């Protein structure tokens, strides 16, 4: 097998071709129990501890639909401006795989619970792009296979595999877009913005935490290219399980460049699934997915049709929360920030934490500053989402309060945050334990300033001579002497005062 990794530059690819995308997002619902049995969905115990005859597919066991699962699906459908089916059925998707207990997945086929909707997504420059929704349907998750003995955890080369069915039967909603056309060079950005917007929506509906890092939300990126001006779609590739916003954008971008390279060299795109690699943003071939794959769908005879009454649907519609984009526009005005800043906050998944921090008493600017700065950096370093950091909005609000009161400067505040993240306690406890307080005692500060001037006579002379910029070195010396616990601005004032120089 030859691995073609030659890529066409993104600009060249877009000069010749027009990308068409289809995005399939799976959302794990946050219901207490599984979709078709009473097993708990809280995955924290040992392998196969959360199973029963139904989710293990034991002979004779039967499914019963989780009503909250249906309700969640309807809520998602309504929030996506979909029509809600008056009558629909589950269907069996038949294929063999050891982690699927019944060797069919209970899903929906030609009768989805929600269909024909749209989601408006806002790009970084404020442009709104409408993504049409084909359908949202209910299904169940599979179990988990762990392949042991192979090099990469893949089945190839493994000596044996372990099966854990705790995840089997967890409710999933699959949301499928219609072909996304006309995004042009912004296609990868649209893909990312769509997934981000959908995630916000799911969270606002409170039907799932939608944590991509935990696999609660997973995206498959279908992409094809067609020569500019052509109507018919090209052959698509399906990049599976792209599990972060950044990866969604990178995967789309990579596939555009790869497809272009194949097409430019006279080759044909193979309809196949592809694996995305976080390390270098590339994709590699998975399994060939031609039309020979036949799931032999048929209506699930063990379940009765789902026929949500119109009254119920309207009740759910009336109870929908403020939708994320509306809310974001409101917050953007309240916070007085730009579209671009808001987009960055959205991408960092920081809206919730910031709002919670403001609710805990902080002003919006500092809440934003800490979450988007120091905390985002920590999250990034640890490769987790912001919400997963072991710090609460109340903690952040307290840090902001201490800074506002002058008890901490920014540098000390960062140390406090670091302490909280390391599990040293609340901000106040960290301040106490680490002895982090701004030295505001003028006497002690003046002594340190005098010492610094005396110890750095040459620099002091330079400053006296007009090279005010050199004051940094003296400030640094004072800060060092006070172990960073001085207010740097005040130190600078004191030094200049002592040397009889003014900053102008």
């Amino acid at each position, binding site marked *: 097998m030859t691995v073609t990794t030659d890529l066409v530059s993104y600009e060249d690819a877009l000069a010749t071709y027009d990308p068409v995308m289809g995005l399939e997002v799976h959302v794990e619902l946050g219901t207490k129990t599984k979709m078709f049995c009473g097993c708990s969905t809280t995955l924290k115990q040992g392998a196969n501890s959360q199973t029963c*005859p139904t989710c*293990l*597919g*034991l*002979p*004779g*066991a*039967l*499914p*019963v*639909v989780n009503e909250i699962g249906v309700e969640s699906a309807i809520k998602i459908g309504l929030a996506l401006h979909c029509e809600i089916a008056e009558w629909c059925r589950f269907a*069996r998707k*038949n294929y*063999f795989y*050891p982690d699927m*207990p*019944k*060797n*069919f997945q209970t899903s929906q086929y030609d009768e989805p619970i929600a269909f024909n909707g749209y989601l408006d997504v806002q790009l970084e420059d404020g442009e709104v792009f409408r993504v049409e929704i084909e359908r949202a349907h209910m299904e169940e998750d599979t179990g988990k296979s762990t392949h042991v003995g192979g090099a990469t955890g893949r089945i190839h080369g493994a*000596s044996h*595999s372990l*099966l854990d069915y705790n995840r089997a039967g967890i409710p999933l909603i699959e949301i499928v877009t219609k072909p996304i056309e006309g995004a042009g060079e912004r296609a990868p950005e649209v893909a990312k913005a769509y997934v981000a917007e959908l995630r916000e929506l799911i969270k606002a509906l409170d039907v799932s935490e939608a944590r991509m890092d935990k696999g609660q939300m997973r995206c498959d990126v279908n992409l094809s290219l067609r020569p500019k001006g052509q109507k018919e779609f090209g052959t698509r590739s399906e990049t599976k399980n792209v599990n972060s916003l950044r990866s969604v954008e990178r995967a789309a971008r990579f596939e555009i460049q790869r497809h272009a390279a194949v097409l430019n060299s006279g080759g044909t795109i193979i309809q196949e699934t592809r694996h995305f690699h976080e390390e270098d943003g590339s994709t590699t071939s998975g399994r060939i997915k031609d039309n020979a794959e*036949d799931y*032999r*769908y*048929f209506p699930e*005879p*063990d*379940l*009765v049709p789902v026929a949500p009454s119109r009254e119920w649907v309207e009740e759910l519609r009336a109870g929908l929360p403020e939708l994320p984009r509306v809310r974001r526009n409101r917050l953007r005005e309240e916070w007085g920030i730009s579209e671009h800043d808001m987009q960055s906050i959205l991408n960092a998944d920081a809206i919730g934490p910031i709002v919670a921090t403001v609710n805990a008493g902080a002003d919006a600017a500092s809440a934003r500053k800490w979450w988007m700065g120091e905390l985002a950096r920590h999250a990034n370093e640890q490769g987790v989402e912001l919400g997963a950091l072991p710090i609460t909005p109340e903690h952040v609000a307290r840090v902001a309060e201490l800074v506002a009161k002058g008890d901490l400067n920014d540098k000390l505040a960062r140390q406090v945050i670091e302490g909280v993240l390391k599990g040293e306690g609340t901000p106040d406890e960290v301040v106490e334990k680490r002895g982090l307080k701004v030295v505001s005692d003028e006497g002690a500060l003046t002594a340190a300033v005098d010492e610094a001037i005396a110890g750095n006579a040459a620099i002091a002379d330079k400053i006296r001579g007009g090279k005010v910029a050199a004051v940094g070195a003296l400030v640094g010396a004072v800060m060092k002497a006070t172990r960073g616990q001085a207010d740097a601005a005040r130190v600078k004032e004191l030094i200049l005062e002592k040397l009889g120089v003014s900053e102008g």
Partner: protein
Amino acid sequence: MTDIIKLTAAEIASKIASGELTAVEVTEAHLARIGAVDEKVNAFLYVDREGALAQARAVDEKRAKGEKLGPLAGVPVALKDIFTTEGIPTTVGSKILEGWIPPYDATVTKKLKAADVVILGKTNMDEFAMGSSTENSAYGPTGNPWDLTRIPGGSGGGSAAALAAYEAPLTLGTDTGGSIRQPAAVTGTVGVKPTYGGVSRYGMVAFSSSLDQGGPCARTVLDAALLHEAIAGHDELDSTSIDAPVPPVVEAARNGSVQGMRVGVVKQFRGEGYQAGVVQRFDESVELLKSLGAEIVELDCPTFDLALSAYYLIAPSECSSNLARFDAMRYGLRVGDDGTKSAEDVTALTREAGFGDEVKRRIILGTYALSSGYYDAYYGSAQKVRTLITREFEAAFEQVDVIVSPTTPTTAFPIGERADDPMAMYLADLCTIPTNLAGNSAMSLPCGLAPEDGLPVGLQIIAPAMKDDRLYKVGAAVEAAFVEKWGHPLLEEAPSL
């Protein structure tokens, strides 16, 4: 004292309640009978001697303490080996589940335990309930107690033979295309397929989910009603179970009458393939009904002729999916797991070795019928036929209260005769299948012996959905009239084993 094993379930229950018999005596008598004859009959796949005696002792203790006993307390029952029984093997007549001990009870099993019946064991059946002769069991065929060289019907041949051989007064069956009624017909016993959704399917190993229905098998109409009442009712664990009161079947069985009833005779249920003696006994039954005060109405139901074809698309389609779970990963047989083969290979080898020919035939048929490009022509069309048959039944039941027909076109055929001719085998269910497709209720009860071979003939009574009580009302009247005419129950004429 009359022989315990010849007593009806109703008699046993009343003798235990009155103290005339203990549950342990009754159980021991049946265990002894099983020990004496089952080597010849092969009705049982598993006899739970210890469990049965323990249950019997518990019933006797309960009675001694003056606790309230259910209407079937202490009565022995054998279950078709398709119902899961916690701690007791459940094979579904297949090698692929050999040695599997279910960790849970079927709803029906639970209900029986709660009713204080004594579970004797599990009865033989065609593998996965696919067949009309019990020859497809992986554990050897069951003999018909009327003639051990003949089939006892199927798939529930074990349950029917156990009754006819007096090994149990009550047994449980499942009926997907006739698997309760056809065995009842050829063994001279009573079998009822309740309305679809009337008895929970939870814990009943699925063959064809939209057709399968558990039901009672007995030697008398009243006994069947008592068992029916014990197992029926809504079950939250089965989404297709009907949330409505159980039809008053016991009351109906105690008050048999056809006076003033309109009884339908369907033109399509006779003709080519029907044995002369079967037709003769059926015609006599119709005359009997007339003499008992029923009005006979001729019915034309042309779509019934399509029932068999539709059934052999729907049932295999559903079975191809239902049986996919037998993949050697979680339970049952595992073949070829020597460390060199892939999971896929182990699954394939296990299914190759574990399933019998008929099961494989139907899985292949169903896989094909559901395939893209064929779905509309096969599965889709079959579902349309099903709708038409349901409508034809509905129209018929506007004119009549019940419909009667022969249960099966012939009497018990010799073991081996149709084993290599699936189409001939499938014809045994000609009269029973339409009811499964429509989901309504039906009963088979004995209506005499065919003159040419001296073997039992079954009369089928069909009632609308959730009107199961009509089966018992009519059945009890017919049974009483026949017993009076013959001077004894038909089974008395069976040779002793």
